[in-house]
């Protein structure tokens, strides 16, 4: 059965929110947006005056319950698209995008059973859409979030995560810092390891559904550790934010 192509849409930037020194949230109004599932992404396409185009994928951080969509972009110093989006883009600008895309790394509140969300850096973005959706729907499914950041400055959505966790509706959030920690830091201070996963996440007997998102090396290591802890591979979903794929 022929399907209609997913259209490129022109989206208007409503607002840009500074999240951290390196990350910004872009709130977009997308006429004709068909709605999305938490975890899905869009492809953004930029066109220069000479016709040159660049295209990258960005996860949606807003839940389906909100109007428009939000993307959160981390600036890579020598990146092509992320530097444009974080340095140059302003409210009122227009962007071309298509989506929602990706139907596998998704979660909705209709799913019961515990949830284990593991993020490295901007890998939190699609997980945040799930966390916000869970809150918007008043879901109480036990949800453990484990996020790894380089420094305390890099923590995206810190206040919102703290506020949601304080509601005592089954959401627990753990942060770990891998490079530098301020003296008053109360969270963990090492890379995500086996012990951290077994202490902070529901065990395999609870049969959680796990979503792991971040840089390739981190996702590889976490997914492998979860399997070695006894979690069923088919209950672990991963999204690797390529590039930075290691040597080979």
């Amino acid at each position, binding site marked *: 059965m022929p399907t209609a192509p997913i259209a490129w849409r022109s989206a208007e930037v409503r607002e840009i929110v500074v999240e951290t020194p390196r990350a910004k949230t872009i709130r977009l109004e997308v006429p004709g947006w068909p709605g999305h599932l938490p975890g899905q992404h869009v492809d953004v396409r930029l066109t220069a*005056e000479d016709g040159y185009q*660049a295209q990258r994928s960005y996860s949606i951080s807003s839940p389906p319950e909100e109007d428009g969509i939000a993307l959160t972009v981390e600036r890579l110093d020598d990146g092509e698209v992320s530097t444009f989006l974080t340095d140059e883009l302003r409210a009122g600008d227009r962007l071309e995008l298509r989506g929602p895309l990706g139907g596998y790394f998704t979660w909705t509140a209709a799913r019961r059973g515990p949830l284990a969300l593991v993020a490295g850096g901007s890998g939190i973005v699609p997980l945040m859409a799930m966390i916000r959706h869970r809150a918007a729907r008043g879901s109480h499914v036990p949800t453990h979030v484990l996020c790894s950041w380089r420094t305390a400055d890099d923590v995206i959505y810190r206040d919102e995560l703290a506020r949601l966790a304080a509601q005592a509706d089954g959401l627990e959030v753990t942060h770990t810092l891998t490079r530098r920690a301020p003296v008053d830091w109360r969270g963990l201070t090492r890379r995500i390891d086996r012990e951290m996963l077994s202490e902070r996440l529901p065990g395999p007997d609870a049969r959680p559904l796990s979503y792991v998102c971040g840089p390739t090396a981190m996702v590889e290591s976490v997914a492998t550790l979860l399997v070695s802890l006894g979690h069923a591979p088919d209950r672990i979903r991963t999204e690797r934010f390529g590039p930075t794929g290691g040597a*080979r």
Partner: protein
Amino acid sequence: MITRGFRNKRQRPDPSRVPPGQYVTSDFPVLSAGPTPRTSLDDWSFALRDVDGDGELATWGWKEFLALPSTPIAVDIHCVTSWSKLDTRWRGVTIDALLEAAGLDPPAPYVTAFCDGGYTTNLAVEDLLDGRGMVAYEFDGAPIEPEHGGPARLLVPHLYFWKSAKWVRGLQFMEEDEPGFWETHGYHLRGDPWKEERYAGD
């Protein structure tokens, strides 16, 4: 639509080698839907399965597979997430060589590649013949790393790279073209990068 303020800072990719919408990376990104499966070489086998699904037309264990005539190939690869990598070097057994070793003519026009971890992808047999498809087991002169699909992955460089199924364990012949894993999740049934066949309907 021109994006205000966006300027081309990179070298424009060579349009004869880099399909539209792609950028060139020297990195080797990894994309897959779940944990990396690890199968011991003693337990590894590769099968060609008949259309009914249970009849095995041919199978090879790891050592038998390595004994098949292999071919080196240097090709450009293109991922649907819009990176391309030029001049990648592989070695493996072409699908032509596999069919020949099995003494087979393709019994049906389509296949589903099946893999450790449950991944599948569909292909037209036509896209695999005449040296256009192989089961690769070496990248850059070394065994393929598990996260890149080792011990063996399909390599169909003229299609988007999700068709080059990682951890491949066999091909099941099909009378009809039936969507595999990503194809049922909104991706194109064939995936020609030069036509930008990224998503269903493209």
